[in-house]
């Protein structure tokens, strides 16, 4: 159990009378790629928000790197190296691609002097490198708001990498991206995991994508944990198929 980077234990989240997450427990091992699937409204994004401290949970605990983070707030958790991307892509629209990258450096080790000075050359270099990694180098001086939706998603991913997180929570990284780009994106996700050592927890509706990515998958339905297992087990589980197609 000690090799789990993220431990979610019995988390329940209610919005008024609606139970969005009911006693959810999951583990994300250090260095792994874990998938989180489930039909619309099954509580995946709510769980993400609970993990990163966006709202308080009603019960249960969340531990990250052995430390309890249940009561910490969003920026504090982010500075510990637990980052999320958003389903509705969020980038800084009125800033250029490079500026978006510059401001995304890890804030935890930032000294007072660095807060008021220009980005050092190695930051720019790393920004350029990561922008080429996601294929946006030629667009780096455009305003981020002028990029296409797919490009904004790639930029958001690059910004997350710029922050050098330990764990990255990706909310539907392939949604709205054309099929050819999806393969490239999956390759990059796998490479960021293998080469940069970033642990990934991924929400995904694209079954082919998540089966390629994740080694272990959790499936939610109606706010509850339906089942968990390897991609093969999940694919062949009749309960999962029922949940998606509305059988039960």
């Amino acid at each position, binding site marked *: 159990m000690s090799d789990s980077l993220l431990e979610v234990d019995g988390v329940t989240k209610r919005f008024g009378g609606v139970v969005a997450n009911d006693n959810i427990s999951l583990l994300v091992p250090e260095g792994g790629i874990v998938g989180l699937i489930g039909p619309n409204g099954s509580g995946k994004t709510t769980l993400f928000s609970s993990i990163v401290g966006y709202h308080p949970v009603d019960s249960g605990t969340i531990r990250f790197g052995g430390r309890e983070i249940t009561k910490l707030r969003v920026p504090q958790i982010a*500075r510990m190296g637990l*980052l999320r991307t958003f389903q509705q892509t969020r*980038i*800084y629209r009125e800033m250029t691609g490079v500026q978006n990258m510059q401001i995304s450096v890890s804030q*935890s080790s930032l000294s007072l002097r660095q807060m008021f000075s220009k*980005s050092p050359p190695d930051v720019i270099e790393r920004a350029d490198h990561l922008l080429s990694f996601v294929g946006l180098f030629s667009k780096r*001086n455009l305003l981020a708001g002028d990029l296409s939706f797919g490009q904004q998603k790639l930029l958001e991913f690059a910004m997350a990498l710029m922050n050098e997180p330990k764990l990255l929570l990706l909310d539907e990284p392939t949604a709205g991206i054309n099929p050819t780009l999806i393969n490239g994106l999956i390759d990059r996700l796998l490479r960021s995991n293998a080469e940069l050592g970033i642990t990934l927890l991924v929400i995904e509706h694209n079954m082919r994508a998540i089966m390629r990515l994740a080694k272990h998958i959790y499936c939610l339905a109606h706010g509850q944990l339906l089942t968990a297992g390897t991609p093969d087990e999940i694919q062949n589980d009749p309960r999962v198929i029922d949940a998606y197609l509305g059988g039960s």
Partner: protein
Amino acid sequence: MSSVWKYVAYSGVIAISVVAPWALPAYQTQLAFLWVMVLLALTWDLVGGQMGYTSFGNIVFFGLGMYVTAVVQRNMHFGIEEYVHVAGAVETLTPQEYITGLFVGLGASGIAGVVLAGILGACLLATGMRGQYFGICTLGLGIAAGELASGWEYIGAGSGLVTPVFPEGLGQRGLFFYYIFFLLTLMLFLTLGWLYSGHFGLAINAIRDDEDKAEAMGIHTTRYKIIAWCLSAFFLSVAGGGVGHLVGFIDPTEVAFAGATFGVWMILMAILGGKGTLWGPVIGAVIFHFTQELFWTYLFGWQRVVMGAFIVGIVVFFPRGIMGWAGDRWPERFGHRTTG
């Protein structure tokens, strides 16, 4: 623009600024106010433009600085009772006393502005107040400050406060304050230029574009917001202190907490020039000040009507300001690049 031309342009502006009050001696006070206007627009834009927190109450710091400077100078040299009742005419100060009192007062007003901004920041910004709520709340603060000052006998209440008479040995009042405001504005401009070019500038721009995202990326949003607000308050308070002495009479709602004039103008000037840019507020303030003076001189009687129409025109035809418009028209020179 190549860096050589940049230095030529900057030196030119500075040279003209130094010579201007000597070349146009009849307009020294108006020129001094020109710098005040530039300063107002720049301080507003730091929080309202670059950080995206539309404040309608920055006038609070302006008025605060005015009162603090005047009260400090008064208390250093006069008994409070005699001063309030004979309205400053007890005796004139020597140049030495005047200067000491003024600069101690300006320093105190700067500190007072930062302290007040810190307290307000902890109440409003640190608790996560945003958008229209922040705007309305600051509007209320501006109005409340004027009402409070009108009811407080210690600072002259509704009948206002007369600042000490400008001593003869110091030359012309307009010239003296012209250089004070020129140096203060120059300091502000250089400070902002430095801050906007670094991490701080990117951080407050990120807060403007998407504060939730900035938080999710671990940016110390509260810290940056309060620093920006305090910095804006510091320069605004010191400027207010100077304006009180230049005008010579502090009325609580017409001069100090003049929300309907300076309070609105600082926003308009920043919008006219282009908010969120370094040069926008400067350009906006210059155009606005000259236009306003012309309206008052040549269209007297109708000046407020014409000013109202001018304001509507600004908002309708230049919603992104002159710099924004120039950036759209000549993106290579004024804005971002459109190709790699």
